[in-house]
């Protein structure tokens, strides 16, 4: 097979990996600070995809411009969900938390089915079928836009956590909740804010992803699973780890499809997961817990 074929596939995998990474950031942010495993992760992203679909169809807004709108809407959803529901069960055993999030996931699926029906639906932007020819590379325009958008949103998120007082306060809550309370931080508000930021990431990822794939109510679980694989590979709770995990999965899935059989893609993701769990259980960029 020609070298340009490998290059094309690797670039495509890299761009897809950026979106996977952004989606996994949502899971990582929430777990890293609140220590809640969001089993409704994929379903919340599907909500973002449907919201984008509605904005595109009824108001004609390009999905890329929908990113801030959908992210803001899902931020509000996440904030309220944490403050009104999740907060009340954080002291319960893990399995109770899992069940709550799974119940929320089921409710979202049912709601989407009632409103949008079971069929897959997509957005048809003017540039949907365009591609850039760069030397031997033929890169899908939508994928480039989507990858850049994912990179920008991830960059903003990193900057928020690194340079703003609120971001630093959230990180403090994640590192030591008691300490945060002692120094007078409003932990309840910061937790809600964190959950909101996590779901906003999913909203942004959903708005971007709807450019690449059609949305239907049953799409969620596969993305929940994918996000788990990514954050475990990258390091649970590590933001750069989530992005790195996304890139690794995107590229390795694409190349595995080319070198072996496309139906081997998932096997490669899970193979990587097993390898990381065996050799570096804390993940590539995760901190070792003793």
């Amino acid at each position, binding site marked *: 097979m020609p070298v340009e074929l490998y290059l094309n596939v690797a670039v495509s995998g890299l761009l897809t990996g950026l979106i996977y990474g952004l989606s996994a950031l949502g899971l990582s942010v929430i777990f890293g600070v609140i220590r809640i495993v969001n089993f409704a992760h994929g379903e919340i992203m599907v909500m973002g995809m449907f919201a984008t679909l509605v904005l595109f169809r009824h108001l004609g807004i390009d999905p890329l411009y929908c990113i801030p709108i959908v992210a803001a809407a899902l931020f509000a959803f996440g904030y309220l969900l944490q403050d009104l529901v999740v907060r009340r069960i954080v002291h319960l055993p893990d399995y109770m938390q899992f069940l709550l999030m799974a119940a929320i996931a089921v409710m979202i699926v049912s709601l989407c089915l009632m409103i949008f029906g*079971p069929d897959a639906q997509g957005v048809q932007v003017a540039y949907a079928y365009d591609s850039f020819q760069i030397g031997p590379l033929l890169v*899908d325009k939508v994928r480039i836009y989507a990858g850049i958008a994912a990179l920008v949103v991830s960059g903003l998120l990193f900057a928020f956590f690194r340079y703003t007082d609120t971001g630093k306060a959230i990180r403090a809550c994640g590192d030591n909740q008691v300490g945060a309370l002692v120094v007078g931080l409003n932990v309840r508000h910061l937790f809600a804010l964190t959950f909101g930021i996590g779901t906003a990431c999913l909203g942004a990822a959903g708005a971007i992803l709807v450019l690449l794939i059609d949305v239907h109510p049953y799409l969620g679980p596969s993305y929940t699973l994918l996000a788990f694989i990514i954050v475990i590979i990258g390091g649970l709770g590590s933001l750069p780890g989530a992005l790195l995990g996304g890139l690794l999965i995107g590229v390795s899935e694409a190349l595995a499809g080319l070198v072996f059989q496309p139906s081997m893609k998932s096997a490669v993701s899970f193979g990587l997961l097993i390898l990381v769990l065996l050799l570096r259980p804390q993940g590539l960029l995760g901190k070792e817990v003793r």
Partner: protein
Amino acid sequence: MTNSNISKAAGAAGSVTRRTVVAGIGAAGIVAGTSPFSIVRAAGGPLKVGVLLPRSGVQAGIGQDCQRGVEVAAPILKELGLPELQIMNGDTESNEQTARSQAEKLIGDGAQLLVGAFDSGQSAAIAQVAEQKGIPFVINIAAAPQITEQGYKYVFRNFPTAVTILTDAFKQQLEIFKQVGSAPKSVVFLHVNDTFGTSMAGGIGKVMPKFDMPYKVTETIAYDRAARDLSVEIAKAKATGADALLVVSRLNDAILLTRELVKQRWTPEAVLSMGPGWYEDQYFKTLGKLSDGPISFVPWYDPKKKLSQTLKAAMKKAYPDVNMNTNHVYTFEALLVAADAYKRAGTGDSKELTEAVRSTNITDNVSIGAGISFNAKGQNDKVGDASIQNVGGELIVVAPEGAAVAKTVWPMPPYDKR
């Protein structure tokens, strides 16, 4: 099939009726080791037909599409002078266990004949229940050959088996190549790796060597049913330099494959599909002009038959934006078989009704083939397939010759010039 009848059926679902008790006694008889006996019900009223479809779950879209064939049936059957049917809807939830329990429930609620269930696995599960309870079951859509190879007495299928579908597909490909005076020299075979896709792939391996096909399969690419992205698959297929694509897919992957063909600037001579996806309504709606070109080899309707035109007109009136397809045709025909058998049996007695279904001989039908009748195994071996091409947003029959209404557009119009 009026609303009141449906509501009566729904009402019956929630309460214990005389029929429930009788059916219960029947089931108890089977459990006790006695042979299933005939469940006698009053003649004269509408026949109670339990229609089992995947109305929710992953196949919900297709199940709901099949239901359209049910919705338009009543006035057509009446026009044909056939008795009224009382439809009792059941949801298999796209899984076999629910299909089984829903079949039992419908029979318990008084269903005298079952119709369903789009999917081979779910139909096989219902067939076991029908056989156990002694209730005739008319399969609308299911291609797995083994369903009618079990020696069942109450199971009937008016749908070609996978082997027939494949045999017809290769025969008609040769017919098309002759018709257009051209043929691909090489193809890439792309298939989804679910039960249907892999069994079709296995079947192709066995059936294709029996035909002197002008092309070689340069590469076989299997992909995951839940694949989110098929760019690698198309890149790999394109790199082989094959003339055409041979595909067995579902709806979502058919859309994904087409998008990738466009994005990767590759228009093969032809896309030859031996499964669903490429002719479905959602495919047209999603892709618009880009949906033109693929040829599907599928169980279909004969556009030249009178009843096809009647059904098509009824579909057009009820669902103006939907093209009539396999789902509507075979679900409608299953009800046609039920009504026809009920008319001839003159009773809802399960044994007499089953015998009436067995002796079906309908020549005025919709699907491709000589009509509807069943062999000793309960299979309609006269039912055939058609080659349909997407042209201008419509589905045009291009083969077999007897049913064709237009010549094949060959090669496919380039994607970048539409």
